């Protein structure tokens, strides 16, 4: 909201100088869009009674589903961070042949249908695939198991992490790293003591985004695992089998938890004013 306010004042300032109608128009049009996002969520929440909500929260099936969803998405995020952060650094700092191809590949999971992504994953981790059969024989079930759910979540949400990490590293002035090298720091030390400390807020922001995106994934997850049931799958299943009222309470519960986590972590990752000045 704070960001919206500041944009509002800038447009106002412009409007007073040149075209009064334009600022007004942009404000009205913009408000429509914000309303478009808020209205369904508010409507769903308001039409769900407190007793429905507490009943859903008390259900063992719902609780374990929410726990499963949060944990799978978190595991996917942490695991991908170990790979995504070095990749983001490489993409931010090196100009190599095929870099733009890599950038395009990273965005692929965002643009393809997620059900298709699930099918594609099945060919790699399915029971009859090499990875699937090996891991099943060694006791780690993928399809129809939490590990497979985490893989599906990771596949569709990892672009957010890599892109955030890349943007974070790009915002670190290269001169800081160069000067560090001339002072005797190896590339590894430059990464850990200069680049990473200055980019961690952006990386954390990317992790939050990836986690939230993983939690809400439906299409890819339902193809890899109908059971155990993640909450988005459960919302779908209840809507299909018992109707709107039954699904709504679970949906509101999950949305509430997501928004709560999102707000708390965004506040934690917010850049303090002083360090912003230091960046410039």
């Amino acid at each position, binding site marked *: 909201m704070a960001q919206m306010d500041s944009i509002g004042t800038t447009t106002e300032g412009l409007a007073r100088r040149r075209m009064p109608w334009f600022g007004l128009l942009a404000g009205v049009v913009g408000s429509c869009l914000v309303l478009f996002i808020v209205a369904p969520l508010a409507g769903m929440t308001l039409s769900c009674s407190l007793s429905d909500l507490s009943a859903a929260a008390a259900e063992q099936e719902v609780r374990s589903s929410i726990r499963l969803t949060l944990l799978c998405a978190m595991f996917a995020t942490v695991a991908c961070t170990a790979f995504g952060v070095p990749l983001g650094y490489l993409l931010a700092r090196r100009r190599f042949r095929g870099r733009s191809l890599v950038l395009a590949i990273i965005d692929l999971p965002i643009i393809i249908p997620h059900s298709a992504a699930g099918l594609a994953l099945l060919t790699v981790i399915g029971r009859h695939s090499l990875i699937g059969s090996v891991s099943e024989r060694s006791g780690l079930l993928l399809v129809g198991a939490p590990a497979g759910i985490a893989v599906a979540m990771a596949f569709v949400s990892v672009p957010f992490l890599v892109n955030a990490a890349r943007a974070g590293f790009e915002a670190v002035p290269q001169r800081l790293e*160069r000067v560090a*090298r*001339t*002072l*005797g720091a190896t590339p590894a030390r430059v990464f850990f003591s200069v680049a990473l400390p200055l980019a961690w807020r952006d990386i954390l922001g990317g992790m939050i985004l990836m986690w939230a995106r993983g939690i809400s994934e439906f299409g890819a997850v339902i193809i890899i695992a109908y059971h155990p049931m993640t909450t988005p799958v459960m919302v779908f299943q209840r809507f299909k089998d018992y109707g709107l009222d039954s699904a709504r309470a679970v949906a509101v519960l999950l949305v509430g938890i997501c928004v709560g986590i999102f707000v708390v972590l965004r506040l934690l990752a917010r850049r303090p004013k002083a360090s912003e000045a230091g960046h410039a």
Partner: protein
Amino acid sequence: MLELRGIAKRYGRFALEALDLKVMSNEYCVLLGPSGAGKTVILEMLAGLIRPDAGQVLWDGRDITSAAPETRRFAMVYQDYALFPHMSVRANIAFGLRSRGVTRTEAAGRAEAVARNLGIAELLARRPATMSGGEQQRVALARAMVTEPKLLLLDEPLAAVDIAGRRRLRDQLKQLQQRTRTTFLHVTHDIDEAMFLADRAAVILDGRLRQVASPEELFRRPSDRDVARFLGMRNILDVVCSEPGFCRARGVTIHVAGSDVATRHVWIRPEEIILSGQPFDSSARNQFHGHVAQYSRAGDLLAVEVDCGDLELTALVTYASFECLAIQKGRQVYATFKSSATHCF
């Protein structure tokens, strides 16, 4: 001793052609050239941060062209300070020592000693963002010097500092270099800065090294017209010399010193042109009559432009003689100079 052999680099709009340069040990060497000539790129090539397209970098005769920056011990100081914003001043200064495996306590002690030397001991606990440009640059200098570099690379270190801080920092740079006997290579577009600091200055124009000389020598004998113009020298005439001692410039004959058939330009030192209201007898061979076209302040002196018909001369005069001659626009004057006031090139 640092030696560049045929260093060449294309970098965007900037192209450096086969640069040969030697920087002696314990010397304060200044690379002088206009802004945007890619002088930063030269320093970054020396530091090992950018690979030259061709040529070699040698240190004490050893080829280090492909050595990693952290192994060279060439510390860099940038125009925009490039301090680590997430570290205190103390941690910034100690960074290089910590990178080389010095213990935390020893690094902190040495950082403090250097900070005291540069008069920034009271800043040690502060963050860079809260400090003035001059303070930040002294921290950057301390951070580089604490590592006891073999060569200190300074990229326009005074350009972003305000005028009051600049003079103090400039003095400190000179003292620091003399006290530590470290080799300094300093890049700047500021001629006064180069004159004050340099033991030797190297002028780079259009990607080519034009002249390497002491500052005095540079002004006494610029190698060509571009260098002379870059140094801001007045009274450079295009001439033809047919016989020794004489040059013709736009229909006027000038008595000069040290000319030969290869001479293309004559520089008449403006501070050695004497203005007078009446012609006078002297050993000076050149005397021209004209009127004052205009005048302007030039530091502690006044630059008076005299229109002598075919010839325009600028003389530097003191305020005393300016008043004594009652100079104003249109005033008829005689401009007199000896042949020894000229330099042919």
